[in-house]
């Protein structure tokens, strides 16, 4: 009887140890998956933070240059010269300081308010080569641009009709549409296919100075809009690509977030449209 009891105890003990082994394995697996889930949660929070800062920066940018994307184009709308040249960098710096001070993580917004806007995935750049608030807009690195559509409005009586100084037409070149409104008389509209590599130039003669548009030239498909007049012109620049899913980031700027205790770090370009 005693032997039976011992035998029973040993069997039950072995079964119990097996059960203990399995539950311990289950516990360990559960523990490891919890750690993974926790890291996913932190990564999720970091991505949320990045999106919220991008949205804030886009809101500030929108007051200076309205940027939006359509199915196959990126559209920039601003005054030239831009009257927000002073307030824009101040607002950007204020938001940068505000966000960095209040993040739950180690946050650095590496933002310089130079307003270079990179169109992705083409890598074409819309910027102000002589400084934001100055009178020049340029689209550079533009070899993949399929078409430009420019709409300029000048609220000034006495503006004379528009004329081409130089045209280098090329049926296989870059499509170019232009509308100039606010002139004395009827609006000017024109469409041409222009050479990507030989420069064409369009002049709008306004009392006090010209607004000139350059297309193509030594830099493939480059666009330059230069307002040498003190009169502010409303400029809408639509840049079309053959591909869809275009988006815009601040050129060479980044958001850097580090969650030190989880050893998670992420550096993202600042997507604004």
């Amino acid at each position: 009887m005693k032997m039976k009891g011992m035998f029973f105890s040993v069997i039950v003990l072995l079964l119990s140890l097996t059960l203990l082994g399995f539950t311990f394995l289950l516990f360990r697996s559960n523990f490891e998956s919890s750690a993974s889930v926790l890291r996913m949660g932190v990564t999720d929070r970091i991505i949320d933070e990045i999106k919220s800062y991008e949205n804030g920066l886009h809101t500030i940018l929108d007051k200076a240059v309205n940027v939006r994307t359509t199915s196959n184009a990126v559209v920039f709308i601003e005054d030239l010269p831009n009257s927000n040249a002073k307030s824009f960098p101040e607002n950007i710096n204020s938001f940068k300081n505000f966000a960095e001070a209040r993040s739950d993580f180690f946050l650095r917004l590496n933002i310089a308010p130079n307003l270079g806007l990179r169109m992705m995935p083409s890598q074409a750049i819309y910027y102000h080569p002589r400084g934001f608030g100055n009178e020049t807009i340029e689209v550079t690195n533009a070899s993949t641009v399929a078409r430009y559509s420019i709409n300029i409005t000048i609220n000034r009586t006495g503006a004379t009709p528009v004329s081409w100084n130089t045209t280098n037409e090329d049926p296989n070149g870059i499509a170019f549409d232009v509308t100039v409104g606010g002139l004395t008389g009827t609006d000017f509209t024109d469409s041409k296919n222009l050479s990507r590599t030989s420069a064409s130039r369009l002049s709008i003669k306004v009392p006090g100075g010209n607004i000139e548009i350059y297309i193509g030239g030594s830099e493939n498909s480059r666009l330059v809009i230069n307002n040498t007049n003190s009169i502010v012109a409303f400029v809408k620049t639509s840049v079309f690509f053959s591909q869809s899913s275009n988006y815009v980031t601040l050129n060479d700027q980044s958001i850097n977030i580090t969650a030190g205790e989880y050893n998670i770090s992420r550096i993202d370009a600042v997507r604004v449209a």
Partner: protein
Amino acid sequence: MTVGLVIMLSIIAISTGFFILPDNSLNQIQLRRIGSDIFASLDYENVLDTFDKAAIEGNISLILPFNTNVSAVIKKFSTNGDLLDQIQINSDIRDKFISGKRVFAGNAATNFYVAEYKVSFR
């Protein structure tokens, strides 16, 4: 035999302990996701910076899952970082919540805001 039974029961008790140890991290992530999505949505819709308590609570109630509660404090700052005003959205949740934060610029970009929210299951 008694010793064997005692050992067996002890081991089963330990096993049960391992087995039923609570793991609520998925629930916490779900709550965090809910809070984050709600406040991102209200930010994109330009509702948060209206500072209109009724409008914000109304919009939250439209998208809040039925089994969750949300409360928040929304703080309005000058662009210099000085606190200008704050409002309490829904009654403050005090038990078993997760908290989150959204930093944003108002639609006019003349003020900055921080929404500190708490989410819990009902």
